[in-house]
C-alpha cells in the first residue's frame, strides 16, 4: 500500500471552486482505501468583516462568499436585514431579483456541466459550455457592470433599473439557452463516455442526505425534494442523477425567467443608508441557491452594525460526505466525484 498526497496543483480537483483544498488519499493498486479532504487554507473571515461595517456595506462581503452564486448570498443577507428592519421591497424590485437569481442559477449549472466535461476530457464540450455561460455573464455585466453579479442585489431592492435592452437581451439569451440544451443533449448527455463514467458512480442514499442535511440538486438527485423544483429523469443518487438533475433545473430556470420578464411599474428599490439601525432581534433566512439551501443567521443589536452574522453554505454538507464517497473507487474518478457534487470551496472557506 502506498500513500499519495494530492493537492489541487497537480491534479484537477473540484476545479469549479475558488480557494485551495487538499485531498489526502491512500490507494492500493489505484483503488482509494482512505480519503481525507482538508480545507480552511484561505478562510477570509467574511463574517467578521460583515460585523465590522454598516449593514449596507456588509452586503458586499456576503456576496463574496461564493463567486458562482454572488446574487444569492446578497439576496439572503438582504432578506435577513429587511426582515429585522421591516423594509418592504417594491414588487418591481422583487421581480428583477427573481430574474437575476434564476440567471445566476443557470450560469452556475452550466459551469457545472463544463467542469464535468473537463473532468471527462471532453474539452470541446467544456469550451462549448463556457461559451454559453459567457452569455449570462454578459447579461450581468449589462445590468450591474460585474460579470458575476456583484452589487446587483442590495438591501431594499436591486442596484439598477432594468432597461428594455436588458430585457430584450434576456429574451434572446433564453432562446439561445433552449437551443443549447438541445445541442448538449445530443453531444453530451447521450455521450457514451459520460454515461459509462457517471452511471453508478458515488451513490448518495436518501438516508445519508437526510442525516447530513444535504440540500439542493444533490438532495433532489437522491429523491429528497424540498420546494417546487423539478425532478430530473433519474433520482437514484448517483453522479449521473446529479448531472441530469442540474440539466432539468436549467430548463426550469429558463421558464422561470421567461415568466418574470413582464415587470410591474413602480420603483425598483427603497433607499437604505449606512445609518440604518434595525431593532435588536435575530432572524434566520434561507434561499435555494444553485448548490442547495443557503442560510443566514443574523443578530441585530440596535445600531447600524450586526452583532453576529453567520453564513451557512450548502457545500458544507456535501463536502462532509466526500471522504466516504471516495472509498473503494478508482483514483481516476476522484476528481469526477468531487465535481459531480458541485462543491464550492469558496463558500466553505468563506
Amino acid at each position: 500500500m502506498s500513500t499519495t498526497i494530492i493537492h489541487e496543483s497537480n491534479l484537477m480537483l473540484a476545479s469549479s471552486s475558488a480557494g485551495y483544498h487538499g485531498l489526502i488519499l491512500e490507494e492500493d493498486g489505484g483503488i482509494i482505501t482512505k480519503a481525507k479532504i482538508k480545507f480552511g487554507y484561505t478562510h477570509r473571515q467574511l463574517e467578521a468583516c460583515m460585523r465590522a461595517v454598516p449593514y449596507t456595506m456588509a452586503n458586499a462581503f456576503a456576496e463574496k462568499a461564493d463567486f458562482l452564486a454572488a446574487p444569492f448570498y446578497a439576496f439572503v443577507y438582504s432578506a435577513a436585514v429587511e426582515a429585522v428592519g421591516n423594509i418592504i421591497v417594491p414588487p418591481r424590485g422583487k421581480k428583477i431579483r427573481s430574474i437575476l437569481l434564476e440567471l445566476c442559477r443557470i450560469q452556475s449549472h452550466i459551469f457545472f456541466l463544463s467542469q464535468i466535461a473537463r473532468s471527462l476530457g471532453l474539452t470541446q464540450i467544456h469550451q462549448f459550455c463556457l461559451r454559453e455561460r459567457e452569455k449570462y455573464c454578459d447579461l450581468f455585466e449589462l445590468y450591474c457592470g460585474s460579470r458575476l453579479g456583484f452589487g446587483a442585489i442590495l438591501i431594499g431592492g436591486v442596484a439598477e433599473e432594468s432597461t428594455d435592452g436588458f430585457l430584450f437581451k434576456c429574451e434572446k439569451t433564453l432562446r439561445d439557452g433552449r437551443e443549447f440544451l438541445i445541442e448538449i443533449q445530443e453531444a453530451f448527455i447521450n455521450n457514451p463516455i459520460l454515461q459509462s463514467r457517471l452511471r453508478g458512480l458515488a451513490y448518495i442514499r436518501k438516508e445519508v442526505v437526510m442525516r447530513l442535511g444535504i440540500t439542493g440538486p444533490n438532495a433532489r438527485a437522491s429523491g429528497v425534494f424540498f420546494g417546487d423544483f423539478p425532478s430530473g429523469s433519474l433520482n437514484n443518487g448517483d453522479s449521473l442523477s446529479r448531472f441530469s438533475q442540474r440539466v432539468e433545473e436549467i430548463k426550469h430556470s429558463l421558464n422561470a425567467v421567461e415568466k418574470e420578464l413582464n415587470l410591474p411599474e413602480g420603483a425598483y428599490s427603497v433607499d437604505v443608508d449606512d445609518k440604518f439601525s434595525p431593532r435588536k432581534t435575530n432572524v434566520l433566512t434561507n434561499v435555494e441557491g444553485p448548490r442547495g439551501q443557503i442560510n443566514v443567521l443574523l443578530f441585530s443589536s440596535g445600531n447600524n452594525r450586526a452583532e453576529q452574522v453567520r453564513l451557512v453554505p450548502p457545500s458544507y454538507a456535501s463536502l462532509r460526505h466526500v471522504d466516504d464517497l471516495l472509498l473503494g473507487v478508482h483514483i481516476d474518478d476522484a476528481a469526477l466525484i468531487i465535481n459531480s457534487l458541485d462543491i464550492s470551496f469558496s463558500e466553505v472557506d468563506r
Partner: protein
Amino acid sequence: MHKEQVLALLKQEAPNAKIDIAEFGITLEVPSSDWLSTIEKLYNSPQLKLKKLKVLTVRANTFLWAELGSELINERVSISCPAPSSENKIPSIQYLWPLADWFEREIFSVWGIKIEGAESP
C-alpha cells in the same frame, strides 16, 4: 401545527428551559448541563422531530446557539446555553449530526470553547 401546540410540546420536552417567543421564532435557553439532554429530547420527540441542524454557532462570545429544523413544524426553533468556563467542556452533538463536527471545530478555533468528544478539533 400551530405555534401554541409547538410551545406546549417544547415545554413538555424541556421543562427547565427558559422559553422566549420572539417575532421570528422560539428560543429555548437551557443551562450548560442540560444542553445535550435537551437537544436529545427534541431530536427524539415523535411530535416535534427536530432532526435537522441548520447551524451551530456562538452568540456574543458567551452563548452557544443552535438552529434546529423539522419537517413536522413550521416554526423556527433555536436553543442556546451559556458557554462553559475555560476549564470546562460542552458535550459534542456529532453523534446526532455528523455535520456538527465542522461547526464545533470552528467554535473551538474562533471562540476557544472546548467541545468534549469532538472529532476534528
